[in-house]
């Protein structure tokens, strides 16, 4: 029996959304985590990832189907280098604005980006050129969206600006611009994407009912009931009420720690 050929729409939805290369497949994390700390850098990386993925996937589907896998892996690197280096050269020599050092180092690393290798091996070399093109477009959209969203969030939180324009926020969390901040942002973005996918395409997402459910279920002896987590939290919290004298003691100790009176009492 022949395998069912997926439609272009199905390839686009799955490639960019349900099986998002970065958030769901954990591929191509290095440029997002290490270099996409601002919207401008993220836009440049997104363009580089998209061009490399598109060209490499099409070449892999058109010419490399009969080549052995270990040779193909090396060819992906050579194709990536041949695309990235001229672009970087133009940016370095012709661009009016000085390219940040981080971009000069991380932009060439896109040549060995796992998004390209994974999709060439899992999809392009097994499908016709037309479908490989759709898949690479979907992958480019999916990874570019994550790069841009991450870049924008990290710049706003980490530097209090967006695309270089100052926002004058009261506080910034510089950690958001560091790799650990990006991993945590990616975690929340992945959860949001998973929830939207389960809600919008329940038939395509495993365990979609449990994902979409906002109230968890638990066994109470008479069957399964929904639990309101906020009610439960409130009930549990109220059980730890302190006696009046214990409150006084607690606030006295807090006064000493934070010195709310600014030492005026002593004057």
């Amino acid at each position, binding site marked *: 029996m022949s395998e069912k050929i997926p439609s272009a729409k199905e390839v686009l939805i799955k490639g960019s959304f349900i099986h998002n290369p970065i*958030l*769901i497949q*954990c*591929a*191509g*994390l*290095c440029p*997002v*985590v*290490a270099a996409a700390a601002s919207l401008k850098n993220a836009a440049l990386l997104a363009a580089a990832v998209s061009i490399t993925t598109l060209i490499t996937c099409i070449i892999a589907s058109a010419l490399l189907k009969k080549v052995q*896998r*270990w*040779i193909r*892996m*090396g060819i*992906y*690197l*050579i194709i*990536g*280098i041949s695309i990235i*280096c*001229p672009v*970087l*050269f133009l*940016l*370095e020599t012709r661009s009016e604005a000085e390219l940040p050092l981080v971009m*000069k*180092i991380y*932009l*060439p*690393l896109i*040549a*060995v*980006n*796992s998004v390209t*290798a994974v999709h060439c091996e899992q999809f392009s070399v097994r499908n016709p050129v037309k479908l490989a093109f759709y898949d690479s477009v979907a992958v480019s959209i999916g990874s570019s969206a994550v790069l841009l969203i991450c870049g924008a969030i990290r710049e706003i939180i980490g530097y209090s600006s967006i695309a270089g324009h100052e926002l004058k926020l009261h*506080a*910034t*969390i*510089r*950690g958001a611009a*560091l*790799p*650990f*901040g*990006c*991993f*945590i942002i*990616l*975690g*929340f973005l*992945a*959860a949001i994407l*998973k929830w939207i996918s*389960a809600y919008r395409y329940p038939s395509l997402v495993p*365990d979609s009912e*449990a*994902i979409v*459910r906002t109230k*968890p279920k638990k066994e109470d002896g008479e069957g399964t009931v929904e639990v309101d987590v906020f009610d439960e939290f409130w009930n549990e919290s109220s059980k730890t009420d302190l006696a009046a004298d214990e409150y006084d003691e607690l606030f006295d100790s807090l006064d000493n720690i934070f010195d709310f009176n600014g030492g005026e009492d002593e004057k």
Partner: protein
Amino acid sequence: MKIVYDLFVTALYAVFVQNMVMSFGLGSSEAIRASSKPDRFISLAAMISGFSVATSVICKLIDMFTASAELPYALRAAVYGGVLAGVYFIAAFAALVIFKASKKAMGTLGISALNTLVFAVPFINNTASYSFANCIGSGIGAGIAFVLAAALISRGAVRLAENKDIPAVFKGTPAMFIYVGILSLAFSGFADSTLFS
């Protein structure tokens, strides 16, 4: 003696002080994927170290005997990329013809050679103006740093899978990303970074 000292210090620096995977995100996709196969950790560490050392040493020689270290980054990237491709093809050909490597071993070879971690090592050596001993140390450190990160992720992945309190929407990659983020935060402590301002 100084050469050995430089080698060890650079390796330790690359593993613990600025773990290339956790502090820079280099090879983090591969580390997360490799964490599910603990039986491959030692071979991965050896291969990544081998490829990093070979690529670093050849790139250092090219930088010394030509003016490539002074070239624009784009041309330097082309040289380093060409070296990495050459080292990979020679190693893969030798593994296939001389050692009759299995398909699985060839797959591991590809993953360990063609990743951002191995490709970044010559750039890091060049930017930090490392000596020969430093280059070898950073190459060895790259392999150990990768396996340390993969082992930590692997241990956490087991705990995350066993934890039934994690909401369904956070199960899988979301929880994994947050866990890796916390690990990365721990390594950021060594790097003296400002987290809040």
